[in-house]
């Protein structure tokens, strides 16, 4: 069945088709539509799940993890400040080694407070032990939720998964989405088996007890790391199974028109659809460009990146985030992954789309041109913020209204 769905509705449908048991929730823009949709289904008896509204995301993720540890399939969602408020418990829940799916609808972080997206929220969680999937279309949102449960519940993994979609650009964009039938999903995603490590009367379990000293602590943290690394292999297996089952591809890295590409864009999320369009136009103009878009960001698909990037001339890494005092996070991670490669391409770092700021077609062309020049000179350009003079003038105008000294000067 095909249906016109927003990204938020697609996420809710993912949870519904996964037949989740438990929905601990808390509202925050722009993810609220997800929990409102699920609440309506629960009220109408269309989804046999328990929905509990917690008083914060910190408590929401705690309840989610505790319920998963008791042996039910759990879904929850948040955004931005909510994800950060829950950050302490992301580490805990990953350390509990329980599977659940958390959808994050990306939104820029305070201060200043804003509603529109960038990726500093979700990337702040990248070291937490949650695996991360990033979506560019509404179809991918639904598919990612289904795949995330398989990945999280796999006995070799047993880690929670965060599925990310961009606020407004995807959360409220309607696209045609193929809804698989319940039977079709059941055949791909069997009922949750909690194993023996869950709370039952008469079968005591101690979960997340204290450790003394760095020895056992190192052991358990490293086990979590190994499971996350293993999740990369498991993901490849599952993505193949997914493609066979649903007739839709789901590779860890989407490679768009990369076959003979000399210059590649690398970016995550819905803004990458703009990059696809730019690639088509640049191809029309005879330029050999392509796009790499990782769907899987934790574990970081480093080996696959190396394979796809070896021998290329140049790469424009477009970060929709800013690590204060350093620069783009994806750029840093990619540079690290490519460091051991002898014939590595020139990497150029661009930061754009912060707080929902657009990245224009013209900017994609300009980035490709800058990378082309860098390849010619053999000199990587300094990191660059995508920001126009006109935008600067607008901000100056606002500062004059606010009466700040900078504006007056």
């Amino acid at each position, binding site marked *: 069945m095909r249906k016109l769905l927003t990204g938020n509705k697609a996420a809710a449908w993912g949870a519904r088709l996964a037949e989740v*048991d*438990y929905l*601990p929730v808390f509202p925050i823009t722009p993810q609220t539509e997800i929990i409102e949709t699920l609440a309506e289904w629960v009220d109408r008896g269309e989804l*046999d*799940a*328990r929905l*509990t*509204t*917690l*008083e*914060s995301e*910190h*408590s*929401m993720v*705690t*309840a*989610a*993890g*505790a*319920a*998963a*540890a*008791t*042996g*039910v399939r759990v879904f929850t969602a948040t955004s931005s400040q909510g994800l950060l408020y829950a950050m*302490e*418990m992301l580490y*805990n829940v990953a350390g*509990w080694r329980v599977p659940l799916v958390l959808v994050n609808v990306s939104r820029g972080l305070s201060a200043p407070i804003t509603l529109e997206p960038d990726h500093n929220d979700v990337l702040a969680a990248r070291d937490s032990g949650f695996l991360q999937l990033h979506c560019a279309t509404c179809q991918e949102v639904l598919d990612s939720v289904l795949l995330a449960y398989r990945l999280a519940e796999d006995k070799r993994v047993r880690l929670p998964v965060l599925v990310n979609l961009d606020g407004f650009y995807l959360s409220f964009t309607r696209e045609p989405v193929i809804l698989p039938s319940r039977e079709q999903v059941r055949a791909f995603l069997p009922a949750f088996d909690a194993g023996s490590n869950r*709370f*039952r*009367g*008469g*079968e*005591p*379990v*101690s*979960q*997340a*007890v*204290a*450790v*003394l000293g760095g020895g*056992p602590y190192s052991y358990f943290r490293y086990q979590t790391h190994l499971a996350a690394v293993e999740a990369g292999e498991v993901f490849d297996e599952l993505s193949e199974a997914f493609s066979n089952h649903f007739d839709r591809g789901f590779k860890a890295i989407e490679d768009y028109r990369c076959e003979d590409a000399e210059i590649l864009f690398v970016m995550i999320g819905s803004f990458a659809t703009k990059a696809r369009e730019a690639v088509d136009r640049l191809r029309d103009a005879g330029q050999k460009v392509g796009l790499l878009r990782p769907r899987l960001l934790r574990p970081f698909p480093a080996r696959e990146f190396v394979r796809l990037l070896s021998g290329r001339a140049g790469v424009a890494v477009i970060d929709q985030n800013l690590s204060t005092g350093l620069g783009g996070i994806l750029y840093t991670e990619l540079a690290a992954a490519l460091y051991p490669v002898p014939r590595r391409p020139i990497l150029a770092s661009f930061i754009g789309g912060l707080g929902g700021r657009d990245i224009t077609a013209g900017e994609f062309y300009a980035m490709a041109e800058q990378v082309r020049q860098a390849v010619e000179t053999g000199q990587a350009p300094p990191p660059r913020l995508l920001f126009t003079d006109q935008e600067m003038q607008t901000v100056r105008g606002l500062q004059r209204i606010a009466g700040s000294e900078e504006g007056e000067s």
Partner: protein
Amino acid sequence: MSEQDCAGTGKATRQGLLGAGTPMCAGCGGLQALHQIYDLVGDKTVFVNAAGCMTLLSIYPFTPFPGSWLYTAMACAPAGAQGVRDALDVLLAKGRIQPEQDQLPVVLTGDGSAYGMGLSATSAAIDRGLDFLYICYDNEGYGNTGHQYSAATPAGARTATSRVDGYAGIKKDLFAIWSAHRPAYVATAIGTEPADLARKLKKALSLSGPRLLLVLAPCPTGWGFEPARMVELGKLAVKTGIWPLKEYSDGQVRHTQVPARRKPVTDYLQLQGRFRHLFAPVRDTDKLTALQRQVDDYWEHID
């Protein structure tokens, strides 16, 4: 309370369900109470814990709990209990577990979490009518970090963060805060009054909904007294009227022991290092009088 009741509860408190040989400090009033509590709640429980002294009870690979245990974090133990309860309800409703596999979520925290960081999660859990038991061992400070001031620290007590004149404020009234939420049951207790504690816990276990047992936990290391004097000190907390034994249910507060002839508060205060500055090098009569007046005022308004 009849002799019969006392005999019954006395027997119950000798089961020793909670394992021995824990790393708690000698003379820990919280552990004394927990032994009694665990005998009554039994092993069909999931203790949901927030950071505090009792977190050190379960250290990998050992645990004194024959039931289950989940460490959460300081701010969110009631939310952990919510997740466990909701999941068990789902499993029961969907027939995926049998009724005999059901368990009671029991939150176990110190006062730092119960009165402070975890209060928002607690308030919300009561609002939602969560069916759980909350045990707070109140040692009136952040215990296992070296006894700093918490919102449960009483007036005048010295802590590592109120070293000179002692804490200038008053102890937050958690009993009243809980009662204001209209939960199923709230009670204060102390391990040195085991019959009273057992009766209250049994009453709590006979009810459903949010239930708090707020247990004063004399703390030799934090309060500065000899571990051997823990029982004496606990009894004095009740006899001086400093720790009123009471319960709330059905909208009513009832005192379960009204000390007929209260001992002077100085009997209790002078045994503890944290109040030594009120007695030496000079006796701070003004402060001691004020502390006595606080207690007198409280009991004057009790029927």
